[in-house]
């Protein structure tokens, strides 16, 4: 039995909405380049990092299932696979971001570096050619491994050979190992070096936690959307619940990392470390920092605890949206206080890039979902992932 996906059709209104959002985002971005470049580049960075996070988190999700021989997620694997394919778009985005290096990063100005003893020391790592080379390198690794894993998975649909699963177990292990290092380094490069005097060794882990949490929320949203258009027989409440369990675990992991970074810096009270939090602790940014913890941890933690919430489409949709808004706020707090302004601002420049990027993301994901079977029909673990009555049907 194959699950033909010809029937996945985006309604015209949704298509128009997505294209409208994309054009809106693009227009704001282009307008911003001329009117408010100092405002638009950090927001583009946030949107770009958001997109990277969704793609990478999904690839991690697939890789974890393969390396752990996990069977439960096989039926829903096409969703993270489609998300993973958006890494190519993020790769294009990073090429655009290179034009904003001078607006964003203090260390890219030779004149500033020459007068700064600390930046002179850090020049070995923080210089423009190496920065560009590093980011290109990360993306070559990420996109390359993601493409290989996806290709094996799609090919298995055609000839049902188990060798693709074996190969992907190996590829996934490589991805987890290299991916974890490169994500940490990418977060150092893209976000932490906005304030080049400051450093935190846990920053990479904090970002991995945020990235993975937001990807899980996005996977949950896509499961719910596909359930809504009539695929409840593949994407069951059991899958939703398990994704919910992982969301619960990772919202706790995120807050653990957040507190670890925040509390150690607050406690030791050293000037070179507190320079980051001094902006983010008081006034409007202080309120937003608290809101960040509420959105990313407090609300999801208590909502996701009971079993029935995790099996209820509407509750899961709402809590996933809260997490995704929280992840945007998390990045906003990391980027904006340093690059722009002493107080938080929310204007068309903030809305444009992220809305455009998300519309692009959804469009790309649905294009990819349309292209292949909605579930890996010949994966040996599929039987474990479907409800009993279904699995008998499929193996026939």
């Amino acid at each position, binding site marked *: 039995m194959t699950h033909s996906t010809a029937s996945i059709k985006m309604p015209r209104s949704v298509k128009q909405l997505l294209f409208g959002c994309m054009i809106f985002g693009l227009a704001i971005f282009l307008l911003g380049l001329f009117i408010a470049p100092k405002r638009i580049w950090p927001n583009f960075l946030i949107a770009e990092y958001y997109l990277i996070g969704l793609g990478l988190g999904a690839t991690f999700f697939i890789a974890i299932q393969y390396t752990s021989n996990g069977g439960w997620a096989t039926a829903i694997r096409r969703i993270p696979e489609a998300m993973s394919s958006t890494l190519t778009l993020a790769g294009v985005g990073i090429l655009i971001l290179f034009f904003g290096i001078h607006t964003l990063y203090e260390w890219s100005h030779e004149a500033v570096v020459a007068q700064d003893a600390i930046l002179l020391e850090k020049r070995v790592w923080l210089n423009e050619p190496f920065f560009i080379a590093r980011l290109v390198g990360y993306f070559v690794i990420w996109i390359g491994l993601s493409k290989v894993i996806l290709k094996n998975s799609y090919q298995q649909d055609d000839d049902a050979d188990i060798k693709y699963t074996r190969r992907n177990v190996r590829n996934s292990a490589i991805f987890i190992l290299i991916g974890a290092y490169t994500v940490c380094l990418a977060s150092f490069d893209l976000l932490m070096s906005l304030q080049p005097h400051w450093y935190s060794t846990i920053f990479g882990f904090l970002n991995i936690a945020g990235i993975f949490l937001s990807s899980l929320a996005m996977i949950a949203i896509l499961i719910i959307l596909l359930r809504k258009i009539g695929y409840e027989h593949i994407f069951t409440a059991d899958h939703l619940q398990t994704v919910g369990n992982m969301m619960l675990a990772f919202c706790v992991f995120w807050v653990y990392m957040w*507190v670890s970074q*925040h*509390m150690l810096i*607050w*406690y030791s009270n050293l000037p070179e470390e507190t320079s980051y939090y001094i902006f983010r602790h008081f006034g409007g940014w202080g309120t937003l920092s608290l809101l960040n913890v509420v959105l990313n941890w407090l609300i999801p933690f208590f909502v996701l605890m009971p*079993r029935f919430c995790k099996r209820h489409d509407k509750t899961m949709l709402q809590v996933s949206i809260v997490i995704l808004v929280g992840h945007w706020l998390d990045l906003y707090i990391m980027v904006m206080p340093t690059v722009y302004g002493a107080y938080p601002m929310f204007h068309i420049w903030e809305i444009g890039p992220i809305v455009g990027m998300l519309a692009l993301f959804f469009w790309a994901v649905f294009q990819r979902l349309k292209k292949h079977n909605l579930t890996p029909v010949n994966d040996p673990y599929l039987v474990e992932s479907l409800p*009993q009555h279904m699995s008998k049907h499929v193996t026939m």
Partner: protein
Amino acid sequence: MSNSYFLGVFDNESDIVAATRITRESGYDIHDVYTPYAVHDLPEAMGLKSSRLTWVCLMFALLGFSIAIFSQFWIAGVDWAVNVGGRPFNSLPAYLPVMFECIVLFGGLGVLFTLFVRTKLYPGKKELTIHPEVTNDRFVLAVELRDSAFDTAAITMLWEQYHVLEIRQLSEA
């Protein structure tokens, strides 16, 4: 008081799940189902209610939270206030690690000991092995045998549909 059980030994997962469901739906009281590993659909087939242990865990965690927060405030702020470089005596963020650890410790140990008490487990307890092969590769369904009116023939017929391998009666002293 002695408990008697009527046991059906099955060979595989899908049989035991189906047999359990039909037995419960026919009105028998299921004592327990013994399997060599965790079977996914079994809790639903047995009609198990969700465990109340989670609430016990929450209560213990809140107890740990209160003890941690109270003891730290009282020790550092009231009973033995030490001036460390002019820092305030009471400061909530500094208490977070101990609060976290106490929540985990009280929640974890509390729920474990509650489980021991509720299931009457203690060191050196002699537990009845319901069927020797359940530790190997057999699935055993145990039904409460309450009175002499228990219709063994009917339940045997019921189980035979699901390829029952062996049927026996067991009394616990």
